[in-house]
C-alpha cells in the first residue's frame, strides 16, 4: 500500500540548505537528482555536510530552505516514520531487547502486516542476507558483520523504495568491510532500490557507486560516475580526495603551455585562457627513466629523486621528490628496476593525454560565497 509510491525512488534535492541557529550554512545549496534504482554515494570528510544531508532526507533534521521530493512529491513536511525509507546506521542500531527475527519483523508489525505474511517475509529477507536460521538469536550474540546484515534485512523487509545507508561499514574491520561491500552491491542489484550511501572512504565509494557526489564544506563540489571523477576530478579537493596524485600547482600560459617552478609542459587541448590551475598526474600514469635520454618525444617530464622504493607484490611504489617542496609517487611494474633505486636521480615523464588540469581552491573565498557554477558545469 503505502510502500509503493508512484514514480518509484526518484529523489530530487533542490537548493537544500541547513544552518543551526545563526551559524554558517552546514549544508549549502545542495541540488542532486537521484534516479530510481541508482546507487549514489555522498562522499566527503567529516563535517562536509554529507551526514546532515542524509539526515534531512531521512527526516531526522529539519531543512532550513530548499526542497526534498520523492517521486515528485514534497516530503519535507513528513515525519521520519511516514517517509517510507529504509535506513542502515553506523552502529547497526539493532534493538537489543528483541531477537533477530523480532528486529526484522518490527517495520512489518508497525505496518500491521498480517502475522503469517510477516513470518514469511522475515524468513525470506533473512535468507536474502545469508542469515537463515539465526532469527532466534539476540543481536549481542552475533558478530559485527552479522549484526549489520540484520540491520540491512530490517531496512529492506518492508520494501521501501529507497535505502539510506549512514557509514554502515565504518565500524567493521577491513576484511569484513570488503565482504559486506559485495553484499550491499548484490542487494542493490537484486532489490533494484535507490541506494543513498554516506561514507568518508573513497575506495568504498568508488567500488560501490553508480555516481558519487563529493561534499566539501557543505557543498557538492562535484558529482559524476567514479570513472569520470577519477579521470577528471575538476578541483584540487576532489583530486586529492579520490586517490593519490602528483600535483603541480602552477599556471596555464597562453599557447598551450603550463608552467610550474620553472618547468614548462605542453597542454595540447588548452583553450588559451591564462589561469591558475593544478596539473595532476595519477601515479599509475607516471613512468620513470634512469636518464633523460630515455624520455620519448612528446612526453612531459621532470627530474626527481626517488626517496623510497617499496615492493608491493603486484607492483612497486616509488616515492618521489621533485624539489621545491613538491612530492609525489609512481607505480611501476614489479620487475622494472633498471637504474632505479632509492636515493637515485630519475626523470619522471608522462603522456600529456594522461595529465589533468584542475581548479585550485578559490583564494581567500568567504565561507559561504555566492553559488558558483564552475565546479559542476565546467567540464561538462
Amino acid at each position: 500500500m503505502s510502500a509503493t509510491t508512484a514514480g518509484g525512488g526518484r529523489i530530487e534535492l533542490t537548493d537544500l540548505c541547513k544552518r543551526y541557529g545563526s551559524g554558517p550554512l552546514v549544508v549549502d545549496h545542495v541540488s542532486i537528482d537521484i534516479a530510481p534504482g541508482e546507487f549514489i554515494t555522498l562522499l566527503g570528510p567529516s563535517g562536509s555536510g554529507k551526514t546532515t544531508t542524509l539526515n534531512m532526507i531521512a527526516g531526522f533534521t529539519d531543512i532550513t530552505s530548499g526542497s526534498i521530493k520523492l517521486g515528485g512529491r514534497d516530503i519535507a513536511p513528513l515525519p521520519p516514520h511516514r517517509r517510507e525509507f529504509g535506513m542502515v546506521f553506523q552502529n547497526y542500531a539493532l534493538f537489543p531487547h528483541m531477537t533477530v527475527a523480532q528486529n526484522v519483523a518490527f517495520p512489518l508489525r508497525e505496518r500491521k502486516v498480517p502475522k503469517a505474511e510477516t513470518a514469511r517475509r522475515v524468513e525470506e529477507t533473512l535468507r536474502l542476507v545469508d542469515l537463515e536460521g539465526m532469527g532466534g538469536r539476540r543481536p549481542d550474540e552475533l558478530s559485527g558483520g552479522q549484526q549489520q546484515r540484520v540491520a540491512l534485512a530490517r531496512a529492506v523487509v518492508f520494501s521501501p523504495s529507497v535505502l539510506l545507508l549512514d557509514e554502515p561499514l565504518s565500524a567493521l574491520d577491513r576484511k569484513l568491510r570488503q565482504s559486506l561491500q559485495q553484499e550491499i552491491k548484490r542487494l542493490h542489484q537484486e532489490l533494484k532500490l535507490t541506494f543513498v550511501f554516506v561514507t568518508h572512504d573513497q575506495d568504498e565509494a568508488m567500488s560501490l557507486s553508480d555516481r558519487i557526489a563529493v561534499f566539501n564544506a557543505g557543498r557538492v563540489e562535484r558529482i559524476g560516475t567514479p570513472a569520470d571523477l577519477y579521470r577528471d576530478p575538476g578541483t584540487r579537493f576532489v583530486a586529492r580526495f579520490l586517490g593519490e596524485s602528483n600535483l603541480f600547482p602552477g599556471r596555464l600560459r597562453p599557447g598551450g603551455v603550463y608552467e610550474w617552478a620553472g618547468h614548462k609542459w605542453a597542454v595540447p587541448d588548452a583553450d588559451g585562457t591564462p589561469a591558475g590551475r593544478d596539473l595532476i598526474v595519477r601515479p599509475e600514469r607516471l613512468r620513470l627513466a634512469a636518464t633523460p635520454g630515455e624520455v620519448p618525444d612528446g612526453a612531459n617530464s621532470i627530474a626527481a629523486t626517488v626517496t623510497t622504493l617499496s615492493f608491493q607484490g603486484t607492483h612497486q611504489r616509488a616515492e618521489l621528490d621533485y624539489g621545491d617542496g613538491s612530492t609525489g609517487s609512481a607505480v611501476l611494474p614489479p620487475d622494472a628496476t633498471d637504474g632505479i633505486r632509492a636515493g637515485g636521480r630519475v626523470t619522471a615523464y608522462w603522456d600529456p593525454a594522461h595529465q589533468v588540469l584542475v581548479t585550485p581552491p578559490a583564494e581567500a573565498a568567504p565561507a559561504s560565497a555566492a553559488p558558483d557554477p564552475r565546479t559542476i558545469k565546467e567540464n561538462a
Partner: protein
Amino acid sequence: MPAPTAPPETAGAAVPAGRAPARPRPAARRRAAALFLLLPALVALGVFFVLPLLDIVMRSFTDPEPGAGNYLSLFTDGYTLRVLGRTLLVALIVTVAGVLLAYPYAYMMTLASPTTRAVMVTVVLVPFWTSMLARNFAWMVLMQDGGVVQGLLSLVGLNGVRLLGTTTGVAVSMIQVLLPFMVLPMYSVMQQIDRRLLLAGQSLGASRLSSFRKVYLPLSLPGIVSGASLVFVLALGFYVTPALLGSPQGALIAQVIAVRTRELLDFGGAGALGVFILVVTLISLGVSRRLAGSGAASGAAHVMAGGGGR
C-alpha cells in the same frame, strides 16, 4: 532560533513553493515534550520542597517579629553558639577521620580484581542503604556501659571509658555511618586515573612514595574534596546519631532544631538555625564544585544508585 527567512546571500534560493508552512519543527516539539514530562516532578518539588524552604527563610526574619532577632540570638544566648561550635567541631572530626579511612579503601578498590571489587562495592553500598536506625541502635548496644566496646578497651588497659552519651561516641558512630558517602566519590575519581602515570613517575626517577604523592594524590584530590564536602554537610545536619547516642548536654544543632520545631513550635528560631545549615551547606558545595568540578559528585551518585557493579 530557526531563521524563518533566507539570509541575504541565499536569497536566490528562496523556499520553493509547495513547502508546507508552519509545521511545528522537531526542536519545538521536543521542547514541548520535555516541559510536559518534567512539569509534574518540578511542581512536586516546588510545592513540597522549594516553596516551603522559601517560606521558612521568610519566617526566620519575621517570626515572632520582623527583623534579624532570630539570628542575633544565635550569637547572644550563650547556649546556641556553643552548640554551633560543637557541631562544627564534630563535623570536622568526622570529615577528617573519614578521609583517612576512606582513602586507602577506595584506593584498594581500584587495585582489586573485578570480583573483589564487586564485593568491596557491596560492602560500601549495603551499609549505605541499610537502616540508619538499625546501625545506630547497634552502636548503642555496643557502646552501652558494660558493653562490648568497653570490654575491648579494658583489655588494653583503658577501664571505665564512657562512650554512650558522649560526643566521642557520637563522632565514632557518625564516622562509620557516613563512611560510604566518602568512599564512593573517591572511588569514582580514582578509577579514572591511569595507573601507568605512577610507573611513569617512577621511571622518571621519583621514588614509589614520592611518585604517589606528586602524581596520584593531586589527581585524586577532586574525589577527596567532593567526598569530604558531602560528609561535612551531612554531619552538620545529622540528627539520628546524636539523638540516640548523645545527650541533651552535648546537643548538636539538629537536636536543637528538632526541639524548637516539635516542642516549642518556634519556627522563626529553628528557621534561623536551618538557614545557618543551608548557608554552610551551599558554601561547602560551592567550594567543592570549584575545587573538584561536578563530575566527582555525579559519578558518586551513579555508583550509589546501583550502577557500581562494573
